[in-house]
């Protein structure tokens, strides 16, 4: 495997974005295909990385290091372990699918849209690969601006409110995380006789956390700041209120990326940074976080049940599904962690697909109100079947990928506390309830008057739309039958995180020193 593959995956989209900037405005198709080509190229590179990745090899692979700001030991350091590989491939896959899905709906300012999307990809891939805390923060913020523009320029009627809310929520979390990152780096420097070398290097920080460990006060504070940043992104109850607004207003492809990747940034942050660096604090706060996860599970499901808007329903289902992720992470237990990672991947595939499907119907009817639709299956059988497939995957039908992740989390949480598993299981009933009910209202019965008015515009799925969904459906089946494909890759990550946590003890919140 040649060096520099990670840099290549990360920055190929940037090159594409720069090229698009110089294309003529009158030829939007040029911009579209350049963007698609670039995203496919990044995808191919990421598959190449996947093939070259050695799952049995512990630690990070393909590591690239260069000094960036030597005065503070800040490096340009990229590296991948199983978790990074899985999420990077998910990102590159969903990006080209989203770009393809934008060909029809996006007709205005195509150039700017494609540039935003590719820069978004740079940020997302960078977050999953950065092994320097400072670099990680930069990629983390780079994600923010293009998404702000995508929602704000190409979004729905209430887009400005939604996008500003999205930015402000995210910024509050991330800026506090910056303080925590700097404080962590400084604590490392202080403990190493004032030497900045390695102060932001994740591997050195993790080694330090595993041996000497950071002081309790720093751990409690820094973990809280990291937690806030990641919990807002995931999003966890009660920091989730930006999500429904952002989803409803975002263009279809924006929603796909938002649900598919951006929410995973939070889960990734927990597993990669928050747990290994501040294990004692993580143990201290874990019970509270588990309670919040359970609330998110149930609250998301119940609120989804009563949503009149199809897209909002899927958005709230995300809150509920991501509750499984945080629950799985914070029970600090093997099955739970495996389940959480698998759930992140599955949610990316399934919810991404559901948003694409919502986009299909919205493009034809310019409406998403569930009550106005019924009997869709008569006119659009392929659409109904596809929707049914992904709906069942989201419910957690055994044999499809959604099931395995949730099941593993349930197994893990039963070992942690049967009551927790009990609450989580009840949620699955709710999930089945709101999804099946939604499906019934949309597709069965007589065709509604509203749909009759649409008339001949109400066509079945077009080839391009099918093309975007086939890869996702394939992966949902494959991961449902062979979840080991993913789990095998992340073995090393799970072991190393559990190792970090194994030595940790909860801090007494009243009497810490």
């Amino acid at each position: 495997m040649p060096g520099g593959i990670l840099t290549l995956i990360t920055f190929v989209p940037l090159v594409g974005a720069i090229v698009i900037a110089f294309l003529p405005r009158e030829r939007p198709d040029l911009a579209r295909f350049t963007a698609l080509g670039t995203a496919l190229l990044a995808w191919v590179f990421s598959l190449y990385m996947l093939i070259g990745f050695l799952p049995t090899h512990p630690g990070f692979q393909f590591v690239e290091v260069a000094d960036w700001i030597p005065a503070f030991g800040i490096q340009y350091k990229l590296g991948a372990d199983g978790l990074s590989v899985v999420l990077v491939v998910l990102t590159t896959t969903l990006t080209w699918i989203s770009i393809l899905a934008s060909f029809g709906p996006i007709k205005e300012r195509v150039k700017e849209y494609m540039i935003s999307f590719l820069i978004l990809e740079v940020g997302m891939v960078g977050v999953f690969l950065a092994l320097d805390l400072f670099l990680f923060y930069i990629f983390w913020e780079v994600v923010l601006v293009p998404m702000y523009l995508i929602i704000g320029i190409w979004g729905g009627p209430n887009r400005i409110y939604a996008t500003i809310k999205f930015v402000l929520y995210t910024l509050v979390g991330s800026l506090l995380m910056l303080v925590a990152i700097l404080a962590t780096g400084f604590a490392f420097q202080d403990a190493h006789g004032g030497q900045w070398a390695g102060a932001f290097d994740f591997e050195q920080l993790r080694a330090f956390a595993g041996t000497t460990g950071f002081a309790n006060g720093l751990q409690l504070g820094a973990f809280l700041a990291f937690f806030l940043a990641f919990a807002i992104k995931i999003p966890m109850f009660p920091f989730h209120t930006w999500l429904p607004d952002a989803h409803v207003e975002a263009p279809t492809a924006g929603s796909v990326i938002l649900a598919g990747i951006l929410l995973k940034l939070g889960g990734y942050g927990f597993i990669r940074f928050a747990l290994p660096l501040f294990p004692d604090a993580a143990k201290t706060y874990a019970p509270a976080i588990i309670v919040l996860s359970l609330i998110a599970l149930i609250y998301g499901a119940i609120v989804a049940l009563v949503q009149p808007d199809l897209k909002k329903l899927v958005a709230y289902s995300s809150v509920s599904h991501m509750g499984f992720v945080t629950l799985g992470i914070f029970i600090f237990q093997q099955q739970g962690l495996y389940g959480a990672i698998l759930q992140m991947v599955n949610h990316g595939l399934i919810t991404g697909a559901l948003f694409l499907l919502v986009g299909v119907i919205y493009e034809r009817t310019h409406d998403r109100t569930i009550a106005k639709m019924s009997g869709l299956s008569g006119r659009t059988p392929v659409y109904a079947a596809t929707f049914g497939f992904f709906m069942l995957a989201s419910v957690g039908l055994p044999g499809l990928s959604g099931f395995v992740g949730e099941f593993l989390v349930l197994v893990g949480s039963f070992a942690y506390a049967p009551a927790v598993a009990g609450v989580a299981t009840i949620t699955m009933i709710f999930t089945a309830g709101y999804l099946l009910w939604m499906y019934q209202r949309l597709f069965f019965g007589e065709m509604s008057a509203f749909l009759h008015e649409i008339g001949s515009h109400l066509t079945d799925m077009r080839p391009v739309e099918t093309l975007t969904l086939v890869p996702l459906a394939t992966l949902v089946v494959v991961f449902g039958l062979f979840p080991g494909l993913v789990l095998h890759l992340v073995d090393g990550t799970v072991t190393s995180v559990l190792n970090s946590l194994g030595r940790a003890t909860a801090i007494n919140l009243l009497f810490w020193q």
Partner: protein
Amino acid sequence: MSGQDLLTISPLIAAILVAVAVLIVDLIAPGRREPALATALLGLGIVAILTAVAGRTPGQAFGGSYTVDALTTFLDLLFISIVALTIAFAPDYLEPRDLPIAEFAAVLVFALTGAMLIAASTDLLVLFLALELMVLPGYLLAAYAKHDSLSTEGAIKYFLLGSFSSAIFLFGLAYVWGLTGSTRVADVAAELGKIASGGPALAPGLALGLAFMTTGVAFKIAAVPFHYWTPDAYQGSPTPVTGYLSVGPKVGAFALILRLFVGALGSLRGDWLDVVIVLAALTMTLGNLVALTQNNVKRMLAYSSIAHTGYMLVGLAAYAGGRQEGLQGLLYYGAAYTFMNLGAFAVVAALQRRPGVTSSLDTFAGLGRREPLLGILMTLFLLSLTGIPPTAGFFGKAYVILAAVQAGGPLTILAVIAMLNAAAAAFYYLRVVVYMFMREPATEGEPQRHGNLVWAGLWTTSVLTILLGLIPAPLLSVVSDAARALGS
């Protein structure tokens, strides 16, 4: 006075000659902008070269009252950039309004000599004279649109409060001189060092002097609660002047703080730590809160510049809390702030090229469609002001925050306050982006032509805004040399 002394102050002499030359050129070719502008910009280039050359041989002149060190060179070059950029941005705005350009350039260069003298002063009296030399042209510039009542009103406020604060400052200076028996910074520092090590209690006279000087300086940097003159003075002034006022005199006043509070009063820093923390927290928070409610971009930027003063004060507080890094952060932030803020004001000025165009948010509506390049550059400046990486503003903030975290204790809380403020500030900065890219204009305005100088200035500021964020290492080493020159 020796020949060597003259050589040491050659950049200063050159700057004065440039200002005079601009006036003479204007006499020879009255009413034509090109000769005066060319003289000014070429002259500034020469001054910059002389500064760099003089900076290679650090030393003192005039018995220790004038010092050339890494700090002097850094600040001088920064001041020269500020003035050169302002001169580049101004003609497009001034000409349609029938405001003379040559006088504008000459007055600015006179102000530059004051600022450069501050950077090099190591004598309390010279420091005061330099300060006055810097701010007096500022009063003139604020009133530059003399037929505009808003400009006159703002200038009068600026002048009255400015003179008032100078007097207060001078009063405090007198106390320090009386108690230490010297006006040389080195002697004052030595004398105060003895007092500081002698006992815990601060002599009442010294405390009084410190209080007066802090108040005077707080006026000059527009720290809350001494900021009231700022919004009116900024909004009333012609836009390029506002850009200059928000950067030049502010960085100049920070230079004064470095020479006076750090150089001379550094040994008392434990005594002014608390004051600086409170000033910083108030300044950031109030500046941002009021900026949130503004519908006029110029006034919004005026309040936001108050908030940025607060972030810079965080660096000073970190120094007072015992971290040399605080000064480096302050200097880095000063440079970053200079370029991003001048750039933002330049875009506002460019939009107001036609007389009568206001700087309200509506002017920005649809700019992204009308003049995409201008919209993108403005977005870059605003993102940098917000502190989003990879821009200069981000790295400046990170540096200041790092220093505060290093100092620890109450400064960690100050760091958290600063970051919460930055998040709140995102709202009003991004609102401009919303208007530029996400709203349609109320009336269809046609794109305007902008002069080459404006574009050159905009490219300079935007490239620096990105470079200082992406490749901070070179400026970092300059800044740490400059901070080291002050001692600790």
